[in-house]
């Protein structure tokens, strides 16, 4: 028994040492942006030019908050969550992506028309058209969560 335990300990120790030797020696991405940013969507390349993000090897320009970036921010959230977290707290994501929430993002952010929100006032009628043109757009948020209100009509 003791022999097995010793062998297992040695194996685990060796495995841990090998695994640790695989870990990158580079420093982590800055946890917070060092300077406060102005209101509105930031254009990272305005200050960082053609530089690349430390720990990411991507250009700062590829994180410019253009319309295309905002519409496709799921890719950045998947690959570079640490880059998002430098400026955004988790609650920023939860404004829209809460798995279950009482308030529509557009109501919660009614004083922030600059924030993107798919359910602005009047959408109840429009969703009957959008749902026919592209139901997959609804699925991303409502397919597996946050669909209690959907079931009021879509039984």
């Amino acid at each position, binding site marked *: 028994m003791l022999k097995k335990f010793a062998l297992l300990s040695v194996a685990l120790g060796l495995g841990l040492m090998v695994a640790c030797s*695989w*870990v*990158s*020696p*580079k420093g*982590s991405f800055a946890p917070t942006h060092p300077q406060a*940013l*102005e*209101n*509105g969507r930031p254009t990272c*390349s305005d200050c960082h030019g053609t530089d*690349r993000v430390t720990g*990411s*090897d*991507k*250009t700062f*320009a*590829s994180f410019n908050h253009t*319309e*295309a970036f905002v519409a*496709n921010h799921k*890719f950045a959230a*998947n*690959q570079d*969550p640490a880059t998002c977290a430098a*400026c*955004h*707290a*988790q609650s920023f994501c*939860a*404004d829209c992506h809460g*798995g*279950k*929430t*009482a308030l529509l993002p557009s109501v*919660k952010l*009614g*004083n922030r*028309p600059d924030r993107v929100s798919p359910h*602005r*006032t*009047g959408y109840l*009628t*429009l969703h*009957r058209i959008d749902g*026919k*043109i*592209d*139901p*997959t757009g*609804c*699925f991303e948020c409502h*397919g*597996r*969560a946050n*669909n*209690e209100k*959907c*079931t*009021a009509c879509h039984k």
Partner: protein
Amino acid sequence: MKHRIRLALLATLVTGTAVAQDVTFSSNSFVQAWSPKTPGFSQNTAFPVTEYVGVDVAKLDGKDALSLHVYGWGMADLGEQTYIGGKNTGDLTYGYVQYDFKQANAQVRAGRFTVNQGLGPAPLDGFEARTDLVHGFMVSAFAGTPVVFKNYSSNDQNQVGYQQDFMFGGRLGWRAAKVGELGVSFLQDGLHPAQSLAVPAPVDYTRKQIAGDLKLVPVSFLDVTGRTVLDVSQNQIVAPNTSPSRIAEHDYKATAKLNEALALTATYVERNFFAYYAGTTLPNLFKQNEQGLFKATGASLVWTAVPGLQLVGDVRRTDRASYGTSTRAGVDGRYNLTDKHVLVGAGYHRINAGAAQSVNPLFPSYSLSHSEMRAWVMADRGPYTGSLDVIRLQYTDADNNPNLNGQSSETAVVASLGYKAKENLRVSGDLSAESNALYKNQVMALLRVQYQFGLAVKGGK
């Protein structure tokens, strides 16, 4: 969430707050009032009160490594019931402990959080770990119990919880300068697929997906981003004599920065309903058996005319097997007058869409075409803030579309005034008025109180 997990989180929150050097507490309170006018529904005044609370505790270890993050909400209907789940309800959106290493972007977190792999964000009670490896590789993994929300249309709520009992997955990525990043990920949600049960269930709520993602940025002016997701479950219930595609999604975009002022983006999306809708908890709406195919191609041109002024022209063509082709085209603009503390935006889009079938023999089909117009402004003067948002929708075929009740246009206005009483206390009130096909002139009032204390440096602007 299990009771003991809640207790553990509460204990961590209390002890963590006591020893931490950096605590941020945020409270967002909302009081709403309106009178629903929907035909066939109660006309009593709705008066819901909702409270969102967030606590971020950093430096639990005295350094900038161990932190705690909790966010949730509760609501009470003081008038007519407005929420399907009941007059008094709430939820813990997330609550987790996180440890950030100074090396290799290594991170560990445990509790309730959201994972972004697979199709759409998925909340999970469990743990997640990630680290960068040598030679540009990185690895991440997660496992736990998926958060299952109640689906009131389903008679077998217990079946959903039984099938979706465990979720796990991970991602292996590789990144390099002047290349970008490539990744492959795996997600399995549920260990008990419907067909594997002793008595097979009629609906399968589990899913198993493999995805490949990329972000190529070989030069500063080019960015190609996208992913392909495959449904690899062997347990999906396939209709007889069919062989639906297992490609759930292709979603790609390429952006070329033409010069300092112009950027061109092209997009391509393809989704196969059978694979894409796998595991939905709303199968009567997201119908796997439709076996439809959806494709969309688009392009947008962003022009930064002068600093602060951004104009976007975009066009998107979509094809859906059952509803034909539609084209959405238009322009958006926003102007940030930083020195005057004013931000304005406007947009116009025209959607030329195919016809939808109607059950009315006199009007067997109706057009989905419409126009969308929007203009908004935000401004602040000292402690005062204000915003105005106007939306107008113009429908082409109001006479035949049964969903529009003969109304060819809708207008909605949201006005907001706010006052920053203190650096960490803001009060604002919204008044929205809309005339639409369902409500017919509804007015809603909202009071918002936002309070925050602590050394917050994040939160989004």
